[in-house]
């Protein structure tokens, strides 16, 4: 099996590619988290205008395919680093999804808690910061794990704007060996599977740890 030998010799490149993919993932999740949280808070606590703007932005980002956003950001008329372009584009897309995770989590906090906080004289920012966000984080971990694994897989799109991640390395090998497509993509599939499993099991454990007895919990 010649291709096995080639794949083994390219392992260092795949390792580098995996690091790049994880960098893109971390970057896009942070962009998506910050913007997504802002959208969620704006949609729940904002006044009519802010609500409208946030909802429009969310719907807009929700509706555009990641590939389109990638090319759109990449071809913006200023010099963006390719990695940054990928992070921003995928992060924007992720923010729409993350905002819905946070919104759902916030809305599931019992309204009695907020009333009690108000009655105790807490200001709105304080309520958000001390009451809403801590509970939201715990409630979001489950659905956020899904977003994490789906975004991990979506980093494979970043190669279209020239980010040398896992997929791009696969394309290199297919190009210079003039074939072996199935074997190379199978290898890449296994690599993504491994990464996803490691990532999600970490978040499952985190969720377990932050679980408060008496509150609902996902099963196994």
């Amino acid at each position, binding site marked *: 099996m010649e291709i096995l030998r080639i794949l083994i010799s390219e392992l260092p490149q795949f390792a580098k590619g995996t690091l790049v993919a994880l960098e893109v993932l971390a970057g896009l999740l942070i962009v998506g988290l910050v913007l997504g949280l802002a959208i969620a808070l704006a949609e729940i606590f904002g006044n009519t205008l802010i609500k409208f703007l946030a909802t429009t932005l969310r719907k807009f980002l929700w509706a555009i395919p990641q590939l389109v956003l990638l090319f759109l950001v990449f071809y913006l008329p200023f010099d963006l680093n390719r990695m940054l372009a990928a992070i921003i584009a995928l992060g924007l897309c992720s923010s729409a999804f993350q905002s819905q995770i946070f919104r759902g989590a916030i809305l599931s906090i019992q309204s009695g808690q907020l009333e009690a906080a108000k009655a105790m004289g807490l200001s709105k920012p304080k309520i958000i910061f001390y009451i809403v966000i801590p509970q939201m984080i715990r409630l979001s971990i489950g659905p956020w794990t899904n977003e994490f694994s789906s975004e991990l897989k979506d980093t494979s799109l970043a190669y279209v*704007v*020239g980010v*040398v991640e896992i997929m791009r390395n696969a394309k*290199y090998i297919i190009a*210079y060996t003039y*074939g072996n497509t199935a074997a190379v993509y199978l290898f890449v599939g296994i690599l993504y599977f491994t990464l996803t499993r490691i990532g999600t099991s970490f978040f499952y454990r985190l969720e377990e740890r932050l679980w408060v007895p008496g509150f609902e919990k996902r099963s196994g």
Partner: protein
Amino acid sequence: MFKFKKQMLSVGFICAAFLLSSLSYAADLPVYKLGIDAAFPPWTWAEKGEIKGFDWELFQYIGQVEGFKVEAADIPWSAIIAALSKGKIDILAGGLSYTCKRAEVIDYALPHWKTDYWTLVKSTSKLNCITAMSNGANVGAQAGTTGYRWLKEELKDKGVNINIKGYESVELGIKELEIGRLDALHVDSPTARGFIEAKRDVRYVCKGLHFDYSAYAVTPGDPHKLIEKINAGIKKAYESGKIEELVRKYLPWASVEAVPYPVDYKAFCTESN
């Protein structure tokens, strides 16, 4: 004591060497972004983290004789011409053929290579050069290439009964050919040879029905005045035997011709399109 002196001396030497090398860097050659698609042998490709290929090595040489450095920027082919026309890269190298349409959005140096096109069929196929591209045959080509345009303009538009199928990559077309969904695949000869040498289940039935010129391209308007340097560099590469060396290394079946070809693009474009 003597030993210590010797050590000091060698330390001094190392320091001097560092200083000198940093001085030569201080003379600062301009660095340009060389856009390549590193999945395109034999022109440019990446193997074990290293960039290789005819165009990549030729550019190292051109930079050396013309006084600039290049830094590789790997961008997939589908995005590369737009990246150049938007100035994301300064130079585009890597088997780019000259077309008049592309010349509207990017500026070309003089061509340095002539690429002919081959028609491939499945190894067991009984088709020949004529039957592979007539009688309602399904003929594939990479979309956006000169080969695709030739099939359309020279065959289909002139009444030859073929169905043209465009593929985003040659690899997809080869796969379809092997499976039997395509009767023939029309592809540039370096790529065709690569697939044949890799023992894919294909053989050629036609060679050289048409050819195109490959040329390096720069950002529209040539802001860094690179075209002249590239043309001069190619000429020097030919005269010094560098081209011959690279052809032997990367395209051993090809003959060495005097490059750059003195092609008048304006005349070329009014004639063929």
